[in-house]
């Protein structure tokens, strides 16, 4: 099982994601200018400020050669995890519905947040229970999830609203406290908090984020078997 972690100029959390993935499998960086995904079974689009994000977060990265291959990979059913800037990139690439707007407090905010799993199972929460709490750090300035009401209803019916901020934890003002969503097919998942920073209690405040990487490994190995 091999993870491919994209690296754009301006990526900041790609090494963290690489190391987190290596706790459950093999992992390799994929340069933004390369189209070759190096045989990865799952892709992580990491956090940071791709190309500086001076335009709109993720708006340039979606056009990179590597993302072109990731879009094809996702459309083929490949597993794709977008974290923070990666979530923004996946929304810009229309692999996920909705958009990320500026935080309600208008500031970059770093906090350890409590999350609730709303839809257990699938490729990203195989070992979780509905209502399970995860403690994972979040850090961003543009993390307010938004989608129009019709889209949200459809997503809700399809089980795409996978992860939400626990009561009192939604500092960025996301609609319906949404912290992470997946696509209709369930193979692409994006979230604003950083599971790759919660893989070791020593530095992460918890190891809850590891569950997502572990679930991806199980799903990828299941798909190959």
């Amino acid at each position, binding site marked *: 099982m091999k993870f491919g972690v994209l690296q754009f100029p301006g*990526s*900041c959390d790609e090494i963290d994601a690489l190391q987190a993935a290596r706790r459950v499998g093999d992992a390799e960086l994929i340069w933004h200018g390369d189209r070759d995904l190096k045989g990865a079974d799952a892709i992580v689009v990491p956090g940071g400020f791709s190309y500086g994000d001076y335009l709109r977060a993720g708006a340039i990265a979606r056009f990179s050669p590597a993302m072109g291959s990731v879009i094809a990979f996702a459309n083929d059913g490949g597993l794709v995890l977008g974290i923070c800037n990666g979530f923004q990139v996946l929304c810009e690439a229309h692999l996920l519905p909705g958009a990320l707007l500026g935080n309600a407090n208008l500031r*970059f905010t770093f906090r350890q947040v409590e999350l609730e799993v709303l839809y257990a199972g699938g490729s990203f929460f195989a070992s979780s229970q509905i209502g399970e709490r995860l403690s994972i750090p979040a*850090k961003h300035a543009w993390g307010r999830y938004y989608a129009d009401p019709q889209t949200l209803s459809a997503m809700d019916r399809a089980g795409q609203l996978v992860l939400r901020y626990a009561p009192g934890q939604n500092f960025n003002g996301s609609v319906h406290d949404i912290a992470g969503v997946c696509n209709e097919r369930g193979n692409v998942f994006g979230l604003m908090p950083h599971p790759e*920073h919660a893989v070791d209690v020593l*530095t992460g405040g918890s190891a809850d984020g590891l569950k997502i990487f572990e679930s991806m490994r199980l799903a990828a190995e299941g798909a190959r078997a």
Partner: protein
Amino acid sequence: MSAGVTMSEATTVPTLEDAVALGLTREEYGLVCEKQGRAPNQVELAMFSLLWSEHCAYKHSKKLLRTLPTEGRHVVMGPGENAGAVDVGGGWACAFKVESHNHPSAVEPFQGAATGVGGILRDIFAIGARPIAVLDSLRFGEPHGASAARTRYLLDGAVAGIGHYGNSIGVPTVGGELYFEGPYEHNCLVNAMALGLARTERLVGSAAAGPGNVIVLFGASTGRDGIGGASVLASAELAQDDQQGGSAADMRPTVQVGDPFEEKKLLECSLELLELGLLVSLQDLGAAGLTSSAAEMASKGEVGVDIDVAMVPLREPGMEPFEVMVSESQERMLCVVEPANVDAVMALCEKWEVNGAAIGTVTDSQRMRVLDAGELVGDMSVRALVDDCPLYDLHPAKPEQQVYAPPPATLAADATPAQALLALLSSPNLSSRRPLFEQYDAIVQSRTVRRPEQADAAVLALSAASGEDARGAIAVSIDGNGRRVAADPYRGTIATVLECASNLACVGAEPLGTTNNLNFGNPEKPHIAWQLTESVRGLSDACRALEAPIVGGNVSLYNEGATGPIYPTPVIGMVGHLPDAGRAGRLGFANEGDEIALAGPFAPSLAAGELAKLRGEPLPDGLPAFDLDAVRAAQLAVRDAVRQGALSSAHDIAEGGLAIALAECCLAGALGAEIDLGSPAAAPPGSELFGEAPGGFVVSGTAEALRALGERVPVRALGTVGGDRLKIAAAAITITLAELAVAHSGLQELFS
């Protein structure tokens, strides 16, 4: 003019008045003419005026700095390079340095603070170390009353600027400190410290070497921003701001604009160039831009350099040669490359999408020659530029009377101990820094073992660097206390260094090395010279006693506005090592029923403390004496107990004294405490509760652990952990955790 060299006919020779306008004295201008053998032309005068500025030449501080201890068993790179470095074990070196960006931040806080972070990060990766952490030290005027609007504008801008740069470049901001005092109203302080890691054998110097080698400039293009930053802005007193922004606004074009994305690419490109062994030496471009970088590289290597300004990638057309040479455009590096490696260097620049341009060559002439498309436009001796700036003796004299006005009283003299405690806890200097550190990414790079307000020092695991199962960690603390130093520059500075070391002890770390930023007023004034001299003497004595030598630092003088000088503010950064990250200490109470004790030779006094400030008392003349060796012994005992995992918590008693330290332990651990101080204090609220001094620690743990600690250091039982309130019997203090938390969040309103 040098024989055989024809200077451009178009070059107008500037006058003495031009030189004075650029910051040189008449005597210095005369000396430049003597060194040149003629009047300098425009390019040369611009370069001399920058390199002979206080900011670049340290002409009022160099003699004093030579008295500081700079050698020790852990030091692998001392002062003189872009940053110092200490050995942290396993073949790794930790590079670190603190620098100021005070005047730019006073003029334009967002960009001033942002480029301060950018500059210190470049210093770290210039020696081949990957930056792993940033800390910052901030000083502003009072956030209430007449200065409120200006203070909030500066605070908000500086914090946003620090976050903007650090967050975007992927280096965590793991700690810092912040104080509000009247004397900083017109001259705020923004000091930034950075740490980096490198394999010790891969550290790289900045000395140019090998005549015939190529000088490559890479990174951002060069524009007209920041021209005169080092001389006009950083080496003179700030004029008073008028209501419209006035003269400070006029200075705004001398402030540079930061681009963290450009620096992120530059950082990765630089480290990859070094990793591939393509560089002879590397230097960042900071104050005085290309002038300073090229001249210093040549000076260190005892060689000459030829630079052709026509080869420099420009941001705007029509720049004069002197503008190219003195521009302080950010995010640029200069390196020396063997001719055979130039193509490989350019290819890597292309990969990281940064400009790379061969702009000159190393020569054996020991002269710095500036060319414009091959035509000579400047020709100077490297030694004259870098080493021949006159150094000045200070003329220190202790002032007859107190220089600083007392602060406005905000607490009634007859306040009860409970009222005093809540007033202190909610005061801008002591309330929670959460509104700041929540704006910073503290965890990127996955090393952060102790986040802000979890412990007295930030703790960073080494394992992420080595990829091995290393248990060790780096601890770092930054501190300063201008009011105490103003009351007693010698003892106040020692107390600051001790506080850093105490912070390290509380997480279990041994000090390895120290960096400092000396923020003072105009050293040509005798009382400022006295502050500076006494402070450096204290710094020297403290670092010697702690065996934590100075490995690098910075001096920021002329920090004065029209209303007078700032408090003398030596900002100290100290780096230490602990063998087991898993046992890093915490400051919060951890277990119901744990016993609480006061450890150390603590002899508190209200002199120059936070309570005295709230009461509006004037600064005293001098601080009480303390026993440096006894404080060090207490630090060693606490450090060892933390390393053994014997203590549940350890917290240094600092501003606000014992009562505030106890409240902080309660808040950080979300646990109450019952404290019995024995016989009531003589005149509450007295020095026992709120007095300050080095050498006191609030520790908690089992009775047995505290008894064991008591065998090495004075330990006084204070009470037990538990409940939902802080009770201090003798002083009739009973305050719930909820009330403490509300008081402690007093800073939040400044950001809303």
